[in-house]
């Protein structure tokens, strides 16, 4: 019986007089892979960043398990230890090696002893297939490799849920595959994930639920099957198939 890890109620975000999104409701159950799709600029990334409180919402509530993290007085740093995030631009710590990147949170935030942290970091790097690059600096890694390190870094903290903000959008086409592969394995292993992406192939094959957002609200939400083959709204069909034309075919080939 799956219980909700992330519950979002009536979430709203504004920048000045612009409303980015309004009254968003979302539930992410344990083990789910939720993929959020939609045209650029509809607030998908902003929504994701609200989930780990990197961006403060202007209205609504968010629960992580039973804790309301939007409540006043919440220790945000603590909360973020349990939510992993992977960024479009990887955002690896440039002055540290791959191994040190993964280790940093363990040593400084979790106060793990050096040896233990080193071991765990190496494990995570192995998990994403980069154990042999442990001593390399970000500047010495390809985009795909950097992103996999980014995933390892987030995984090392043993998060309850992983958030992916367009993880492959900044990658060369050839390198997208290796990252999606890591993500697919993660999903199969049972990790709870919320992914913002344009990769329709991934959405169709890996997602438990797809959420289609446009102009600051959720247009439609459902299983891949439902959204691709029996969408309720014309707009949904339009968007999905247009994007699939661009991205999906490529995915099928690789």
């Amino acid at each position, binding site marked *: 019986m799956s219980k909700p890890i992330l519950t979002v109620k009536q979430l709203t975000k504004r920048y000045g007089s612009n409303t980015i999104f309004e009254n968003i409701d979302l539930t992410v159950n344990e083990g789910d892979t939720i993929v959020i799709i939609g045209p650029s600029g509809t607030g998908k990334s902003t929504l994701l960043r609200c989930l780990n409180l990197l961006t403060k919402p202007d209205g609504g509530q968010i629960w992580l398990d039973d804790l309301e993290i939007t409540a006043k007085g919440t220790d945000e740093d603590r909360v973020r*230890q349990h939510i992993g995030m992977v960024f479009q631009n990887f955002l690896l710590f440039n002055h540290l090696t791959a191994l040190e990147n993964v280790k940093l*949170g363990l040593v*400084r935030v979790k106060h793990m002893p050096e040896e233990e942290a080193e071991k765990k970091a190496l494990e995570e790097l192995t998990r994403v297939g980069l154990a042999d690059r442990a001593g390399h600096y970000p*500047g010495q890694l390809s985009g795909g490799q950097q992103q996999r390190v980014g995933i390892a870094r987030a995984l090392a903290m043993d998060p309850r849920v992983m958030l992916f903000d367009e993880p492959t959008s900044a990658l060369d086409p050839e390198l997208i595959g290796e990252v999606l592969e890591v993500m697919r394995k993660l999903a199969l292993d049972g990790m709870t994930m919320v992914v913002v992406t344009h990769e329709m192939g991934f959405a169709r094959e890996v997602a438990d639920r797809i959420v289609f957002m446009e102009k600051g609200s959720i247009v439609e939400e459902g299983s891949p099957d439902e959204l691709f083959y029996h969408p309720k709204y014309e707009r949904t069909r339009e968007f999905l198939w247009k994007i699939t034309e661009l991205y999906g075919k490529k995915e099928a080939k690789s």
Partner: protein
Amino acid sequence: MDFGRFIQYIASGTAYTLGVTLIALPSGLLIGLVLAFVAVYGGKVPGKIMDFYSTILRGIPPIVLLFILYFVMSGAINLSPFWAGSISLGIISSAYQLEIFRGAILSVSGEQMMAARAVGMSKMQAIRYVVLPQMIRLAIPSWSNEAAIVIKDSSLVYAIGVPEILRRAQLISASTQQPFLAYITAALIYFALVFITNRVLGRVERKLTIPANP
């Protein structure tokens, strides 16, 4: 006066020049570094105060501040020429170093901070383990320039009587009527000091460079 003694007299001022520099530069570093972090991360009001500090001190010629500290404030604080000189130059340098570090911090993209917070680090931890190490590397070239400036500005303390290189060159020039020799000697000593400093810092910079593929 024989040549050797001539040179030696001027060169003996080097100890004072180094003394002033070695007080001014590090104190400017300490103050400038702390204030830079306050300026970037401290919020609106502290930020405004830092702007005020920086603008005022960079708007005054160092020698003017020197006179103020030495002559004008002597009722409240009685400083020797050496200390008045070193402290004034340290204060002025801190304003320039504040700007150097502020620029370097801002060059470390705000996204690095975001990535650090995403892993659960507090703002302070993010600054200490992610921003600061990257910022230092970015600051070195400008800082090297500032170090050279402080070495050269140390000559200003001649005006309040510190017997450093320039003042000695002046005195020798006056008593031997050999200004060319005196000032060329002084110039060469200053040049050597600056040159060595730049070399050393260049090496430090190379050592700290993060490996990357071209």
